């Protein structure tokens, strides 16, 4: 068993298709902690102590967000800037996150093909995510392959999106029960997700 915390960072949930569906499915998963960052801090002012305590209490950290300008939405960036403090997350005495796992669950508007050398995004998604990967690394956390939906804007609500959301719930359950097998996958998607046998 693992203590899972899910951080959702989406500034426009009223207009969200994919992330909202993901939240709805994830709500069915018991035994995990959920945080809506934009609801907790609509005017920023992140409570660093509280967030650090939350991180200490969990050992799998899920960051769920729509991909904005090849990066995270602003509030999540602020959260990273403030919470992953020197002496807490890295640097001298900064070992509080050591050994924990971090996984990104992001939705990208661009189609899969665009995230390649020949695509208009010119880089693979993993390459573009290296800043976050290195962030996890500096904090001595294990960086799991991210769970991604490409082409999120065009994706069909009833098929692709629904499948992605169900896959997301299954992923969270597997993380909670320590039975996620990543193999040597670069990126996890709903159809390539490989989950071990359910514990019960």
């Amino acid at each position, binding site marked *: 068993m693992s203590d899972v915390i899910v951080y959702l960072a989406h*500034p426009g949930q*009223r*207009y969200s298709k994919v992330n909202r569906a993901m939240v709805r499915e994830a709500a069915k998963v018991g035994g995990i902690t959920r945080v809506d960052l934009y609801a907790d801090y609509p*005017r920023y002012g992140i409570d660093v102590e509280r967030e650090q305590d939350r991180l200490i209490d969990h050992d799998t950290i899920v960051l769920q967000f729509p991909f904005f300008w090849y990066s995270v939405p602003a509030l999540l960036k602020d959260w990273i800037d403030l919470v992953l403090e020197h002496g807490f997350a890295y640097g001298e005495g900064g070992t509080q996150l050591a050994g924990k796992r971090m996984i990104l669950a992001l939705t990208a*508007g*661009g189609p899969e093909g665009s995230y390649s050398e020949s695509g208009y995004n010119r880089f693979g998604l993993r390459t573009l995510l290296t800043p976050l990967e290195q962030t996890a690394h500096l904090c001595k956390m294990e960086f799991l392959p991210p769970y991604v939906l490409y082409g999120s804007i065009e994706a069909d609500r009833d098929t692709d999106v629904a499948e992605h959301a169900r896959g997301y719930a299954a992923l969270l359950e597997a993380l909670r029960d320590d039975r996620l097998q990543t193999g040597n996958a670069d990126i996890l998607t709903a159809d390539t997700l490989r989950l071990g046998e359910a514990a019960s």
Partner: protein
Amino acid sequence: MTELLELALLFLVAGVIAVPVAARLGLGSVLGYLIAGIALSPVLGVLDVDVVEIQHFAEFGVVVMLFLIGLELEPKVLWQMRTKLLGLGGLQVLGTLGIVMAIAMALGQPWKISLAIGAVLSLSSTAIVLQTLTEKGLLRSDGGQSSFSVLLTQDIAVIPMLAFLPLLAMPELMGEAAAHGDDHGGLSALDAWIEGLSGWGRAGLTLGAIAAVILVGNFLTRPVFGFVARANLRELFTATALTIVVGITVLMTLVGLSPALGSFLAGVVLANSEYRHELEADLEPFRGLLLGLFFITVGAGIDFGMLSENLLVIVGLTLGLIALKFAILWGLALLFKMQGADKWLFALSLAQAGEFGFVLLSFATGNAILPDAIADRLLLIVALSMLLTPLLFLAYDKLIAPRFSAAQELEPDEIDADGPVIIAGHGRFGGVINRILTSAGYKTVVLDNAIGHLEVLRAFGFRVFYGDPTRPDLLHAAGIDQARLIVVAIDDPHQTTELVRYIVDHFPHVHVTARARDRNHVYELWAAGCRDIIRDTFDSAVRGGRSALEALEWHPFDAERKVKDFVARDQHAMRRMADLYDPDTPSHENSAYVQRARELMREQDEAMQQDSPDYTDWIGRAWTPPRPRDIEANEEETEPSKKASS
């Protein structure tokens, strides 16, 4: 009665004519009064007026002045200035006193008289110098600050001088002194009783009087002022303030101490009181008028017969005095490592003798310390040196300052940062602002005239002063001259507007943050020249709206964006309405205004209800991944060759 009024009229007319003229000529008010006195003296002679008696009465102005000086001196501030006061000021007073005394003795005067002469001439003119430095904006410079410290030391030094000079009394002059008439009339029965006390009894009485001043100042004034303030009559305050000073004067005179010392002490005791600025504002006119009267009597007392007979000697001695004082000050400036123009400013500004010299002179003749002949000559020298002071400042302005101006400019005006922040009105609005500012480390001066309120605040340890913040004299006492910022947070919108207009007109350097009642009030304040206007309930109402949306299960971030948008639209509307607002027409009669208001309201409602595109689509308006054909178009534009080759 009519005689008294006639005399008063005479003095007032002379002052009202001479002082503005002198001020216009850059001579300062003290010289104006002196000149008025000189002009009056023949008339007074014809009317057979006892100028000396009037002068004794006018000396009460000095008592008031020392009370006010005491009020300005919180013990803490005094302590912070101790090196400059004791070092710079102390050396100036003692040094000048000693050297002048030595010269007088060398010229054959007995040591007692020489000492008195030294004391008289060691002082400079607080009135002229402070006024001039303030007018020229030099008070905050290093030289100005040093001058200020020395003047302060001198003001304080007057107290021991007044206390110890009587010890120098010369029995052979007693006859002359009696001619100056120095008895206190009606209280003679008490006087006789005190005369009858033993030495110990008198010492006890003296200590008791001082203790009484301190105790009354500390414990009784607050309830008394609280009581008076509740009556809400302004003149009662003035009466109470005068009662304090007159009471001290009478008490001190009775026990044979200097009233100046007593009132100074009372001033220091009250420096921490919340009534300090009110007292200052109330007593300031008395100080000004009485000192003015005092200078007039000095001017009227100048013996021109003697001046013309001894013209060369007097002028020579005056120039000698200025040169001597300058030399001593210059030495001190070097010792205390003053730089460039500051050195010159310091030495030039303080090189004259001052009005306290007059006080000491009249005191000294009254107490049989100085013979009249010498006192009259000294009086001429003091007056002449003061008359020459404007020339010294002129020399500084024209000859010294230009040479150093480049260096001077490099100095950051850091000192301005110490200027106080004034908060007018400490109610539910000003109170919050005050707490924010003080917790951010700023020194605030809070003015409020709700006495009940004030007592509560005091109990919680806030530094607040009683007084009606809309009174210019009170603002002045609170330090509006040097203030960086004033927050006008009083309840009454009309008073707010008046106050804001006054400050904007008279103190353009002060930033004004004003509390507005409503939209129309905002326009009024804008028209009055304020550019930082806060509607007092607007922000909280906006927060209320946001809470309501959250209660209706809006996502907190959406609610936040919604009200932000509302605020932006409201401000936009306000700006568009501003040019139609006319302070002289009630807004509902101003048809253009009403029409624009309706238009804007309709626009706003539509925008907010319809979920118009720019309202809901903020995320859609943001980045959308480009479609393949956009990419192609883009590449054609920027890299045509690449396309050809592929």
